[in-house]
């Protein structure tokens, strides 16, 4: 039994980093996190998360950033936590709960947008590239 446990630990350490590499490629997981032993391999600047509002009746071009200081403290903490977790987990950390909480806290808004931008170092050009994902949350009728 002890030998099985020891071999299981070693098999995990040997194989998990390979699966972790797949998670990085598919879900944009942070190479430095989740026990992939890929720290100091590639830069991972913090993700930028901006909340946008779109008041009822405005068109799609009328997006404006939401001042985070106007949000309740619990929502600000949730946003801070999302930033950290998204940085570690990539697309595995969905902003759905944050979007729902934002709509709940700001009942004057019909729509909110959670924009997430992460930076990577491009292997070919050695320049920073960005990828922006936008998540739109609409109040249910």
């Amino acid at each position, binding site marked *: 039994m002890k030998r099985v446990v*020891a071999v299981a630990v070693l098999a995990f350490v040997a194989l998990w980093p390979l699966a972790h590499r797949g998670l990085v490629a598919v879900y944009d997981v942070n190479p430095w996190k989740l026990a992939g032993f890929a720290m100091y391999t590639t830069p991972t600047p913090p993700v930028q998360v901006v909340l946008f509002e779109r008041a009822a009746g405005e068109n799609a071009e009328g997006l404006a950033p939401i001042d985070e200081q106007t949000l309740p403290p619990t929502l600000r903490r949730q946003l801070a936590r999302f930033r950290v977790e998204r940085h570690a987990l990539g697309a595995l950390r969905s902003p759905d709960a944050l979007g729902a909480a934002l709509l709940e806290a700001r009942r004057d808004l019909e729509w909110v947008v959670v924009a997430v931008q992460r930076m990577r170092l491009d292997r070919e050009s050695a320049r*920073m590239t960005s990828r922006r994902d936008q998540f739109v949350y609409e109040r249910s009728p």
Partner: protein
Amino acid sequence: MISPGQKISVWIDQGLAVLAEGADGVRRRSQLRAFRRFVLIHASVRSVLWLWFGSAPGSFGIEGGANLVAAGVVALSGVLAFWHRSELLAPRVALPALVWQALATYPVTDNHFVLELLAVALLCLVGKRSRRDETLVLSSLRWLTVIVLFHTGLSKLLYGHYFQGDFLAFMVGQGGRFADLFGLLLPAGEVARLQGYDALRTGAGPYRVDSLPLLLMSNFVWISEMALAVLLVVRRTRLLAAACAMLLVLVIQLGARELGFALLFVNLLLLFTTDGNRRVLPFVVAIYLYSLAAVFGWLPGGDWLQAGWL
């Protein structure tokens, strides 16, 4: 007729045996005892620092009373490891608290902490006066070291930012600890150029330099990590590889300045020697005591050490 399951079992035994050789029973026990004491002192100091500074880096769940209890349990295990009667119990006391810390810091748990957790988990397998267990655990800890060292090199190869020195150039561009070390390999103008980029702006760069010393250093790192991992497995080259790997870790840590990781990995590498862990333990304990005193402001160097621990 041997079944496939039996073949795998034999193959695993042979694999474990490769790194079990090189120490007699008494020395094996002495090595494990010293490493057990080290890793539990290491875990205790880290837990106290997490407690003192309110949280693990970037985490949210480690604050509060549960953190105090976890730190207390880990510190208790550190004490138990120094008594012969309770030394085998010590890692088993620490493990649940370490698992809790890992869960509480998820998903930003450091790889270094995972390595510490796995080492303690393996130490839990040592039974009372069981040579077989001691051989299994010593071999497993050595394999753990080899695999992690190999993966750190392999991942640098796979991500591809070391061939032309891009990662080191980026880190120099960020200033601070890496720039202090690797900036020495670049002309001042190149350092200024790299540090003039805003890494959060699309198109910033190129983080590429025309510097042979930096290029050689960059490729030396990942090649050395993979090669030394292989040489640690070969009995004839094991000691030399362990010494070179320790040197490599210490040189890299001049840039990374992660004192906790450096001590942990050096102690894992010392398991490849016959008596190294026991010999260095007093010095390592002294470093930890100094670290605590400095971080709390009683001795100089606190800022440097805090950055290296947290």
